[in-house]
């Protein structure tokens, strides 16, 4: 994220400037390691370093609510969602951005929460499958997955649903090929793809109607 040539303002917003990055990655230890003038300059300018096992406060906007947690710099958004906040719809499948089980929306776009550091997500609108619920009722995409049986074991399902939601927000009337492409970042080992396509098409139909 943010590594797409976006302007400085956007990068600042993402907390991905060199300054922000250094702050979290422990300028203190770096100063010791580097030693020279550059390292000292960093150390003077920044907060004290944080070692693994210690946390810094990170405030996350998740499904419209603000959550502040003490997070290590290396903690992923997925880890914070699941193990710190108990939001377990996003699943852990590979921890390296290959399966999409952890897909969430960040500012309306599908993102792998396992490849997003918690601190990167600060200041952005994060949505998980829990946030698609309308009260205790399933949201539209969720209803379509239930109706068309766009799932089997269900482990990849919340991620598939978030990918579908992100696709439909960007393209409310996708063609079959656009659905296939839009869902191709999410693996389903049960192989429910044909039913997943039906579910996304059904959700698009209801969104239009």
């Amino acid at each position, binding site marked *: 994220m943010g590594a797409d040539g976006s302007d400085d303002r956007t990068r600042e917003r993402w907390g991905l400037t060199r300054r922000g990055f250094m702050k979290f990655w422990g300028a203190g230890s770096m100063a010791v390691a580097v030693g020279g003038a550059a390292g000292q300059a960093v150390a003077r300018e920044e907060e004290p370093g944080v*070692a*693994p*096992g210690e946390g810094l406060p990170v405030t996350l906007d998740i499904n419209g609510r603000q959550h502040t947690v003490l997070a*290590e710099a*290396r*903690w992923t958004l997925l*880890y914070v969602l*699941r*193990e710190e906040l*108990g939001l*377990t*719809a*996003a*699943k*852990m*499948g*590979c*921890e*390296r951005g*290959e*399966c999409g*089980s952890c897909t969430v929306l960040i500012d309306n776009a599908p993102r792998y929460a396992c490849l997003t550091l918690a601190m990167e997500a600060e200041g952005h609108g994060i949505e*998980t*499958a*829990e946030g698609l*619920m309308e009260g205790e009722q*399933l949201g539209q995409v*969720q*209803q379509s*997955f*239930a*109706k068309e*049986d766009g*799932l*089997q*074991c*269900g*482990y*990849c*399902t*919340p991620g598939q*649903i978030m990918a579908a939601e992100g696709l439909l927000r960007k393209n409310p009337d996708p063609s*079959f090929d656009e659905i*296939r*492409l839009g*869902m*191709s970042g*999410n*693996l*389903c*080992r*049960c*192989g*429910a*793809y*044909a*039913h*997943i*396509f039906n579910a996304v098409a059904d959700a698009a139909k209801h969104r239009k109607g």
Partner: protein
Amino acid sequence: MADEPDTIEGQPRYHGAPEAGAEAQPEGWAHTRVIGKRRPRVDAYERASGSAVYPSDVVLPGMVHGAILGCPYPNARIRSIDTSEAEAMAGVYAVISANTPDANPDWPYSEEETGKLFPAHCRFEGEAVAAVAASSPYVAADALRAIQVEYEELPFVSDELAALEADAPAVHADGNKAGTSSYVRGNVDIGLDEAAVVLEETYRTASEMQTPLEPHGCVVRWDGDRLTVWESTQGVYAVQSEVAEVLDLPLSRVRVIGDYMGGGFGSKLQTGKYAIAAALLARRINRPVKCFMTREQTLLTMGNRPPSTMTLKLGARRDGTLTAIEFKGIGASGAYSAGGTSLLDWLAKDLYRCDNVRTELTDVYIHAQQARPFRAPGYVQCSWAMEQAMDALAERLDMDPVALRLKNIPAGSQARDDKPYTTDGLRLCLEKGAEAFGWERARAEAAAQRQGEGHLKRGVGMAAANWFVGDGGPPSTVMVRMFADATVNLNMGASDIGTGTKTAMAMVVAEELGVDPDAIQIEHADTATTQFATPSGGSKTVPTEAPTVRRACLELKDRLMEMAAGQLGVEREQLVFAGDRIRTADGNDGVRLRDLESLRTQKVVMGIGQRQHNPPDVSITPFAAQFCEVEVNTLTGELRLIRLLGTNESGRVINRLTWDGQVVGGVTMGVGFGTTEQRVLDGPTGKLCNKNWHDYKLPTALDVPAEVISEPITLTDEQANIVGAKGLGEPVTIPTAGAIANAVYDAIGVRLHNTPVNPVTVVDRLDNRTET
């Protein structure tokens, strides 16, 4: 669904003769109101909302995170382990290894082979060396990196054919043969003499890995001497017995819960070392421990479909009658015995009629992880060989591939003493599939398309299958309880591994008791609170559990009828069960279930079902056929799957929606086996090259056929059991890869003997064809 009739009558009863068993059998359902329809899952809400709690979602107060250190070499002896640095790290609660007192129990690699949880000699990459418990998975990973292990690297062998050579490094002292077996019927030599055409080909299938989306693992908690395990598993009772055995605990001290689980495909029929390590860590630190494998570890250590090399010799008369089948198969268990050739020859000896059959199997040890069962073990590999060989034979005989198969349909299971099949499912699948696919027209159209100039060549192919289990059987116990307000609770031990078991069973209850499936409360997959079931595997869950659920309902109904007879003052025989009420046959008198006085007093009425034995003299077997159309780019070797149709005869269709789900899922998995997946063990190092999903290619949304059609044979196999249903989950994936390979052959005229069929292998073969 608005377009569905109120009752389903389209499932003719097949071979409607009464069962031979001594026990009186209840009548099958002549008409059904619920069964056979498209029914969204009873737990669709939990699965789609994200509220379903999978074992990896479990977070307990005080819980810490476990992790396992794996050996980085395929064959190595451990000289020393130093865990002191890891133990001193902040956030590390415990470290255990072979050096830790009371933390290295015996580990049963197989029925015959016992080793240690942390062995001194590691015979495969990823073998457990030590385990840690720490405040987070991050700290646990730091701790693993801080453990100093000195290894003595030893020579290794990773290829099963190389392992059979005389100078190959020995995996075990007594050599690299894990087992051999053979089978003979008739006389193959005479059969080959009678043949007008003899064909011999060798096929090879790469090892395929199950790699379910939820990694293998568990959360464990001790309460005194009682252990609770939340495990991602296909069978809680199997995990209970394994954990109890290794930790030497009574079964009543081990509770295993696994109601939701994120896929297994055979690899979660058993537990793993992680559960034992987690329990040992948790006991030392008096805290719950969550221990899930990393994705890399699931690929390294949590099972595979063994690689296989198969040589197949077929003989046939000019009219297509098979006169001889000879099959030689080599497979690899891995470092310990694990069924490396399990069921590998079954399709060769059982699918088509042939009097003269000889098979030989050799299971081999290699320095790689043990195999685990993988959706239709053996059958998927054999189908790749058998169905391509049949296709080649049809061409040699100038016969239609469907016609050749129809010519050789057996009346019974030849590998099981010719016991007659209860249905003519193979013929039905072939005929209905060919018709629904438009087989003959599609063949002609593809042939015409290939005459064109373009580099895109179309082809069609097909393959058939049976599956020797899929009949189910005892033991299984199910409880159905009715509460005072006439609502129902279903209690069964079986796991719903994504196949829709809970929904299918709720539909059986609904059919029998006249209640709404969604209103049924279901408890399942918990050894403390639910009844015994074998693991969900072998396509036997529906045929095992559905009749048992029905039996429990029938017993419950019986009790309710007794209650109604007493209350109404009429004979029991005068009463009929009519949904939410029981009434006299003439309709003049009746009582609503919720108004039954005995039910209101007793609060709960229960029926118990137990699975009865299957009739002994028949073969209860599911059948399948698949037809597909492909397009091959002869410049790039790229393969496009245009459409694929699956016909299945698995007895009664319980839920058409999840039935179709199984078909599309099985086809997808077959696409993976045939075209994208292969384990690659590095030559110089013996290490797994593709231990992530970037390099180990599962089929994605872009790899599956644009059109997958499910065409069930709707019949009721009355001899099978009192529901008339057989297993489906495995037959749906057996023929896929062979059908694709046959379609590729049709398209480009070269036969791909090895999996996977991908641009590299296709282009390679096309180039060779050009040269010769």
